[in-house]
Each structure stands twice: as structure tokens, then as C-alpha cells.
């Protein structure tokens, strides 16, 4: 380790460390001024976004950043590694978090009682710190700690809404803890065989013992544990209730970034700790993942069609959309397009689903509608939000020139290249199913004329308090929605022009090589 480093190499640890530190500082400042935590959090995350852009630039031009905590060399000390994938994820997380925080300002005033605002922002900041931590770390156990920081704060943030959110939050605590415990269980199996916790070191040591039962057991446990957290299909049961009753800000942050970071752990395990050879030849998991994902895509969409509550419909839609990423990962041994689709969908789904959940929260706050059947005339009452909702929904469906179209296109390329034509059919069919459930909402918003409904028109939050409706939607809530919807279109065009291809190539090559020593 050279004594003088490029200052950019210090940035990952600064982002994570200061995020943690500021969370506790916010608690203190909140004691003096209740509004301060929000502004501190917003300012710091904006800085984080700029810093992560620097990191991305450095990673693409110079190479992966490796930071040794306390100067201890990797197999012994904790190492922070940022390669193209991590930097890409850091940028997404920090950007969505800024918009989420701006949105949360007025939304939280509506959905959460006044005494809890300080704690809410402290917890949000801690959750974000956990997400940043998962993203930059290069150590299996360190990842577990960040995973638990991100999850524990998420449990509390869901329960903070009160009312109906409590039982789902409890379910999530139990399921999430079992998931985290399985993850660390698997890590300890791997440790008992290799005697190391570092990604790079483990990648070097593991190929010798791939047919060891303990290693395969450890891998299975890690995969199942992380799959619970990332609600891949048969393990998604905690998720719909949680997303329905959590505060809208938290629903949108969890659906857009929290679950992506959880899925990133899986990708990191597959490509950097283990290799595609292991997944292909020793356990034959790739086709299994593909078929599970294919079932999930259809099942999530069909359940979504059944729902009446908008947020619950979006939650089931998330189940099916996350399975797209899983499908991409499953196809990647056969075709590089699979991982391109997966990484592209990480961004596209983050933008689209974040926007949709924000719209759902805004509609409830402004017009007091949660049930899709009460949505008539919303297109006239809330033109901007409805338009943004429509664009984001188109992106989810995969209408050409929206973001979702690009990732679906990549996934279809992947299944064609892999000669798995069944998945092409499933992807197209799922587009139709998405159209069915999103069109129901759009139809109700724009085309249904006034109908006698039982809607009281009162805006109620989770605990059933009736709140006074504002005259018009506050700008701080409208702006993030419109920005995200605009990004859906911009990214749709940007993906098709292939401008981000160098970035994707870098991600692919970094993942193929794993974390380089």
C-alpha cells in the first residue's frame, strides 16, 4: 500500500462512515430543532451523490478502488472494494434517495405523527448508511453487519406508520431475521472450510473445494437467505403487506433501492465469491433460477391483476419485476446479454417503481383514494401525477422508448442467444399481463365518467386519522415524481443509443474477473 493515495480512493469509506456518524448527529440536532435532521440528511445525501459520481468516473477510468481499513492487508483486515458494479449501484442509490427524501418532507407530515419525525429521518439515514455499506464492502461478515443495519432500520421504519403496518412489520422481522441468519450461517460454513472472509481471497481458495458438501451447503444457505430479503418468488410472502401499509416514502425507497441492494448481494455472491463454473457445473442452479423467475414473473402479474388496493398491486408488480432481474442472472451463463438486462433493469425498475409508489402516496394524500375503483376523474384532478403515473406504468409494461422496454429487449436478446425460446414467450406474455393491470388504473383515471362510489373523499393515513387536504400537491412532492417519470423516458432513449455500453462492459468484465487482487 502506497502512502499517498488518490483522494478518490478514500471516498467510499468517507461516504459510509459519515453517513453513520451523521445519523447519530441528527438525533442530537433533532433535540434542538425538529426540522434540522431532514435538511442535514438531504444535504449529506446530495454530497454523496456527487462523491459517487466521482467514484464512478475514477472506477471507469483508473480501475477498482480498494481501501484497507486501518491499513490491515485484505485476508486479515476488512477491505472495501468498489468496482464498476458497486459504483453504478452507489450512484443509483444516492440519486433515488435524494428524490425520496425531497418527497418525504410533506408526505411524512401527512402519514406520521409529529413526535416521530426526528426519529424517522434518523432511521432513514441509518438505512441509507446500511445500503451504502453493503454496496462498498468487500468482506462477507462486514456485509452481514450492513445488511442487518439496513434491515433493522427498515423494520422500524415500516412499523413507524402504526395501524395496519404493525403485523406486516412483525412478519418482516421474523422472515428477515431468518434470512439474515441463514446468510451468516452460510458464510460460517464457507469460513469453516476456507478460513477467510474476504471476497477476493475466498474466490481464490474456493475452486479447490467446490465439491465439498459444506461449501455447497453454505452457498445454498446464502442464496436462500438473500432471496428472502430480495423477495424472489416463493419467498415473497412478507412483502405485499409490508409495501401496502408502510409509509409511501418507505415503500418507494424499499421497492426502488433497498431490494436492489439486497439483490446485488446475490449477484456479488454468484460472480465474485463463487464463479459461473460453480453454479453451472457443480450445482446446476442457473436453469432452476430461470424457471423460478419465469413462474414468478407470471404469478406476480396475475396476483397484481387481482388486487384492488393500488399499493398492493404495485407490490405484486414488484415481485414480478424483481424476477426479471433474477431471470437475467439465471441466463447469464449462457449469454452475456442476461447480465446486461439484469443490470439495466436494476436502474430501470428503481426509477419506475419509485415513481409509481410516490404517485400512489400523492394520490392518497391529495384525494384520499387508495382503492383503484375510486380513481375516476383523477386524470383531471391531478394531471401531472396522473401523467407521471402513466409514463412510469408504460415503462413497467415495456412500451418502446421507455426505460422498461430496453431491459426487456436485452432479456429477450439473452433468451434468444441462449436458445431458450420459452422465456421469450414468458417475457412477452408478462408484458401483456402488466398492460392488463396497469391499464385498469389508467382507464379508471382518464376514461371512466363519474360513477356513484362509496368513496368518502377523506384523506386518511394508516392510523385512520382524517387529515386536511391541501389545495394542490406541494411542489416538493410533485417534483421528484415528475423527475423520475422524465427519467423513465430519457433512460429509455439512452439505453437504446447504447451510450452506457462502456459502463456495462466494465461491469461485466469486473464481475467476470471477480474482485481482482
Amino acid at each position: 500500500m502506497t502512502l499517498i493515495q488518490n483522494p478518490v480512493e478514500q471516498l467510499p469509506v468517507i461516504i459510509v462512515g459519515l453517513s453513520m456518524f451523521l445519523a447519530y448527529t441528527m438525533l442530537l440536532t433533532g433535540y434542538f430543532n425538529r426540522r434540522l435532521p431532514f435538511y442535514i440528511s438531504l444535504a449529506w445525501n446530495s454530497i454523496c451523490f456527487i462523491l459517487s459520481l466521482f467514484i464512478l468516473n475514477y472506477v471507469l477510468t483508473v480501475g477498482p478502488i480498494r481501501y484497507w481499513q486501518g491499513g490491515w492487508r485484505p485476508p486479515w483486515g476488512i477491505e472495501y472494494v468498489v468496482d464498476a458494479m458497486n459504483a453504478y449501484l452507489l450512484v443509483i442509490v444516492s440519486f433515488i434517495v435524494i428524490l425520496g427524501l425531497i418527497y418525504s418532507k410533506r408526505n411524512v407530515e401527512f402519514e406520521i405523527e409529529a413526535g416521530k419525525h426526528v426519529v424517522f429521518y434518523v432511521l432513514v439515514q441509518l438505512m441509507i448508511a446500511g445500503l451504502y455499506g453493503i454496496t462498498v464492502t468487500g468482506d462477507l461478515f462486514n456485509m452481514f453487519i450492513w445488511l442487518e443495519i439496513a434491515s433493522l432500520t427498515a423494520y422500524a421504519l415500516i412499523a413507524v406508520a402504526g395501524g395496519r403496518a404493525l403485523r406486516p412489520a412483525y412478519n418482516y422481522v421474523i422472515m428477515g431475521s431468518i434470512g439474515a441468519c441463514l446468510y451468516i450461517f452460510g458464510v460460517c460454513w464457507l469460513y469453516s472450510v476456507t478460513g477467510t472472509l474476504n471476497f477476493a481471497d475466498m474466490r481464490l481458495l474456493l475452486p479447490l473445494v467446490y465439491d465439498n458438501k459444506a461449501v455447497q451447503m453454505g452457498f445454498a444457505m446464502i442464496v436462500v437467505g438473500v432471496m428472502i430479503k430480495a423477495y424472489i418468488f416463493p419467498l415473497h410472502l412478507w412483502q405485499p403487506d409490508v409495501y401496502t401499509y408502510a409509509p409511501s416514502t418507505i415503500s418507494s425507497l424499499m421497492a426502488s433501492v433497498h431490494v436492489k441492494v439486497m439483490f446485488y448481494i446475490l449477484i456479488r455472491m454468484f460472480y465474485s465469491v463463487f464463479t459461473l463454473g460453480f453454479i453451472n457445473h457443480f450445482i446446476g442452479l442457473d436453469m432452476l433460477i430461470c424457471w423460478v423467475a419465469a413462474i414468478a414473473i407470471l404469478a406476480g402479474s396475475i396476483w397484481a391483476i387481482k388486487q384492488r388496493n393500488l399499493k398492493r398491486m404495485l407490490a405484486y408488480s414488484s415481485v414480478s419485476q424483481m424476477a426479471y432481474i433474477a431471470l437475467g442472472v439465471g441466463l447469464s451463463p449462457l449469454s452475456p446479454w442476461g447480465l446486461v438486462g439484469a443490470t439495466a433493469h436494476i436502474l430501470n425498475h428503481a426509477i419506475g417503481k419509485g415513481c409509481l409508489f410516490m404517485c400512489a402516496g400523492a394520490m392518497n394524500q391529495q384525494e384520499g383514494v387508495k382503492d383503484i375503483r375510486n380513481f375516476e376523474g383523477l386524470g383531471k384532478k391531478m394531471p401531472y401525477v396522473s401523467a407521471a403515473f402513466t409514463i412510469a406504468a408504460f415503462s413497467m409494461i415495456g412500451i418502446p422508448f421507455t426505460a422498461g422496454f430496453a431491459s426487456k429487449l436485452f432479456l429477450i436478446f439473452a433468451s434468444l442467444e441462449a436458445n431458450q425460446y420459452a422465456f421469450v414467450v414468458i417475457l412477452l406474455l408478462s408484458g401483456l399481463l402488466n398492460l392488463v393491470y396497469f391499464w385498469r388504473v389508467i382507464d379508471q383515471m382518464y376514461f371512466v365518467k363519474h360513477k356513484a362510489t362509496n368513496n368518502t373523499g377523506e384523506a386518511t393515513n394508516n392510523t385512520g386519522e382524517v387529515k386536511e387536504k391541501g389545495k394542490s400537491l406541494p411542489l416538493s412532492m410533485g417534483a421528484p415524481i415528475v423527475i423520475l417519470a422524465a427519467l423513465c423516458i430519457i433512460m429509455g432513449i439512452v439505453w437504446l443509443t447504447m451510450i452506457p455500453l462502456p459502463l456495462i462492459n466494465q461491469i461485466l468484465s469486473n464481475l467476470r474477473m471477480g474482485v481482482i487482487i
Partner: protein
Amino acid sequence: MMEWITQHLLEKYNFWIAMLIIIIGLGATIVKENLLKKLIGLSIFQTAFFLWVVSLGDVGRNIITTWGLKTQTPPILWKEAAEKGYIYANPLPHVLMLTGIVVSAATTAVALAIVIRIYQKYGTIEEGEIIQKELEFEREGVT
């Protein structure tokens, strides 16, 4: 047969005991209706897992015998041990599990706080009754 028993059961008794307790804990988490009992099951699950990991630190099997027991020194370096070439236990699993205990304590605290709020809202902590009440709320139109 005897050899198989020695090799797979007796020498790895720590694995068997830990796995048995893990299954008891996981079973309680899944089967029990009472939210607190679920939580207790989860705690048993996590603690048994810690027990197993700590037992992994035992690296010096069959190497040193003190008072006729197969054992090894604690991970402290002192003069006599260094001279006699004793092997010390691997301290890393213990350290990892110290952190794990903190995490499990935090999980329990969050879960207990949520259980208290659930009790305040529903007046019960039996899962079936809670779902019944939620259905009633839905019928009455209470959010």
C-alpha cells in the same frame, strides 16, 4: 458401524447438538401462533447458531492433552504455551459471534417493541385473533 458412529456422531457432537436446537427454534418460529413465542423461537434459533459457530473455533483436535482432555489454550499468548508449542483456539468465530449477539439483541428489541404496539392496537398477541380482527376492521371500513 462403530467407526461410523464415532466419526459422524461422537466426534461431531457439537454439530448435532447445535443443529437439534436450531431445528427446535426454527420449528417454534414457524408453528407457534403466539407472537412472543415466535420471537422466543427466533432467539433460540439464533443462539444455537452462535453456539455452533463458537464451537468451530476448536481447531486443535487431538493435538494437546491437558489433564487427559482433548483441549487447547485460549487465544492468549503466554510464555509457557509458546515454549511448549500449544495450539490456541481460533478467536475469530468468537469475535464474529460477539457482533452477531449484538445484532440478535437489536432484532429482539425491535420485534418486542412491535409486539407491544400490536398488543396496544389489537388487544391480543395471538396471530389468528389478530387476523380475525383485521378482517372485522375491513368489514367495518376502519383502516
